[in-house]
């Protein structure tokens, strides 16, 4: 009996490691950085770290839902940039427009993604690749081929969303946490969330079990679009302007943090909290690279690539040892 319990707890431990592999790496990484770099643990640095991560986190939240459903959304980067431009543009007409305009447009793009994917059976990869182009094209059209940058009036209340702080910590961080909490609730505690898992796990079965597959997919991509829009709004408020050059390649960042967080790209399994950990890990790595300071910028990308690989390989090996 005792022998059994030990193996049982051993297996459970391996299970925790696998599911929380990224979290373990994160904790170890933070600890190491804390000791190695004198400035790492400073309040300013930590504040900076979480604030920087919050924009990507919001995008990755939507991506998590999409990936759990077995899909992928490549349009988030462009959509994010578009959201930022629209928010800055809308800020001329007041706070409400600054928030609702980008939300509406980005959600609409997500909605169309979802519609095409759910109703025509086209592959998400290619549909969202097309809307990546579309959203970027729209952004350029709105800004005279990128020549116009809309500025937010420095006195605008809108700026608080990006630049305000509560207890010294940036407003975007709080908003991100709130969104993640809601996201967790949505994924774990609603029928919608259960449908998402079911669609990702076995779409055909989900159809036969009478789940509203098409509707769920459409909602998912709309959600992802909307969250990219939210990230755009926060960024516009943070940067005080609708910067046209952001968001290039952000979709790949979002996908990698979601995967680092332990969500299966094949769908059917994943966690919101894992994504948060993934975002923090990525930010941590960038911060550490800065702290080291001597790394040639070309080496930095080699290191990021290698790091991504190491985390994924470790996770994979842990997962294997668990099923053994």
């Amino acid at each position, binding site marked *: 009996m005792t022998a059994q319990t030990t193996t049982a707890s051993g297996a459970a431990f391996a299970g925790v490691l696998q599911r929380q592999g990224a979290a373990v790496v994160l904790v170890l990484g933070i600890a190491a950085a804390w000791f190695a770099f004198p400035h790492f643990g400073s309040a300013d640095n930590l504040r900076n770290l979480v604030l*920087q991560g919050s924009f990507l986190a919001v995008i990755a939240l939507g991506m998590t839902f999409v990936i759990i459903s077995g899909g992928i959304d490549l349009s988030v980067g462009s959509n994010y940039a578009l959201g930022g431009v629209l928010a800055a543009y809308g800020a001329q007409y007041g706070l409400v427009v600054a928030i609702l305009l980008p939300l509406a447009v980005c959600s609409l793009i997500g909605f169309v993604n979802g519609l095409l994917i759910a109703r025509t059976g086209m592959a998400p990869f290619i549909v969202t690749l097309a809307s990546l182009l579309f959203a970027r094209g729209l952004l350029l059209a709105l800004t005279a081929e990128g020549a116009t940058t809309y*500025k937010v009036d420095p006195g605008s209340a809108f700026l608080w969303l990006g630049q305000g702080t509560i207890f010294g910590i940036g407003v975007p961080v709080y908003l991100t946490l709130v969104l993640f909490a809601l996201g967790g609730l949505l994924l774990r505690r609603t029928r919608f969330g259960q449908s998402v898992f079911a669609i990702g796990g076995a779409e055909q079965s989900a159809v036969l079990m009478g789940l509203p597959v098409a509707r769920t997919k459409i909602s998912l991509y709309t959600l992802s679009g909307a969250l990219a829009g939210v990230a755009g709004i926060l960024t516009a408020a943070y*940067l*005080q302007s609708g910067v*046209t050059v952001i968001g*290039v390649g952000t979709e790949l960042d979002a996908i990698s943090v979601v995967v680092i967080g332990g969500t299966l790209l094949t769908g059917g399994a994943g966690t919101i909290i894992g994504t948060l950990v993934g975002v923090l890990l990525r930010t941590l790595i960038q911060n550490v690279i*800065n702290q080291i*300071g001597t790394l040639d910028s*070309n080496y930095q*990308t080699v290191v990021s690539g290698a790091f991504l690989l190491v985390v994924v390989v470790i996770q994979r090996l842990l997962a294997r040892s668990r099923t053994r």
Partner: protein
Amino acid sequence: REETPAAPSNGGGPAASAQSAAPSADGCTLEKTGYPKVDLKTAVVGFSQSEKEANPFRITETQSIRDEAAKLGIASDKLLVTNAQSDLNRQISDIKSMLDRGAQLLVVAPLNSDGLQPALDAAKAKKVPVVTIDRKVTSQPCTDYLTFIGSNFVEQGQRAAQAMAKATGGTGKVAILLGSSGNNVTTDRTKGFKDELAKTPGLTVVAEQTGEFDRSKGQSVMEQLIQSHPDITAVYAENDEMGVGAVNALKTAGKSPGKDVKIVSIDGTRNAVQLIVDGSYNAVIESNPRFGPLAFQTLQKFENGEPIPASIVISDDQYDESNAAQKVGNSYK
């Protein structure tokens, strides 16, 4: 993709540190800002680079900062260097992180003219002067940042148009190879060029397509344009790389660049200037990336209490048939 098409841009001035600081009566002084005085020799200096050092401009720029710091005797652990890998949020975070690590003076090569406000605010809060190089930010000089050192992109475009008028003799059909969309450098160089070109009625723009500051894209686009507009007699490329790409395309199509089709571009890289010498190129408006000496000089003056003008615009050099052979050594690679 984190490799945004490199935008070897701007900045400028003839080689080394020659400058023509626009003199200004009441510049920004240490007193005015109320910043503490620091000694450049012992201070912690931060340099935030915007993009990977993967093109001549960025390589030379970063190297120039490092070299000058070494020359001034700044210890290597006192010079903090970060690279934002073309990610604006990351550049803000980089700057904040350097401030956090005790940077007392900052040199920033902004990724974009807009959007660095949070980083500048952080520097202001810590009373750290910021010199922006190569690209101007749209914030308030002296309050948000100390000064901008670099060239005027609009003016570069204008001068390219003048060079074009000279090379073509004032008549011709012009194709423009634009830089990356959404980039301020592209916007300014296009605006300057077109406005100035309007003064020469004989020159008309027949096509403008983006070559994304990239040689191979420039080449591909040019190949297409040669087919659809065989009457093109001049090409304005918004950086040298695209210009060189256009030369390749023209050669492959059996035309002789520099003669049948005139080529003018901006940057001043060795490859382009050498092509002028070889006779396949017509003019290059220079953008000099060697900001190191000037940046540190400016900071030194500021700490000395001297007034610093809001922007230090460098009079760009220019290469054409008349001087390329002598000056090719000034170009950078």
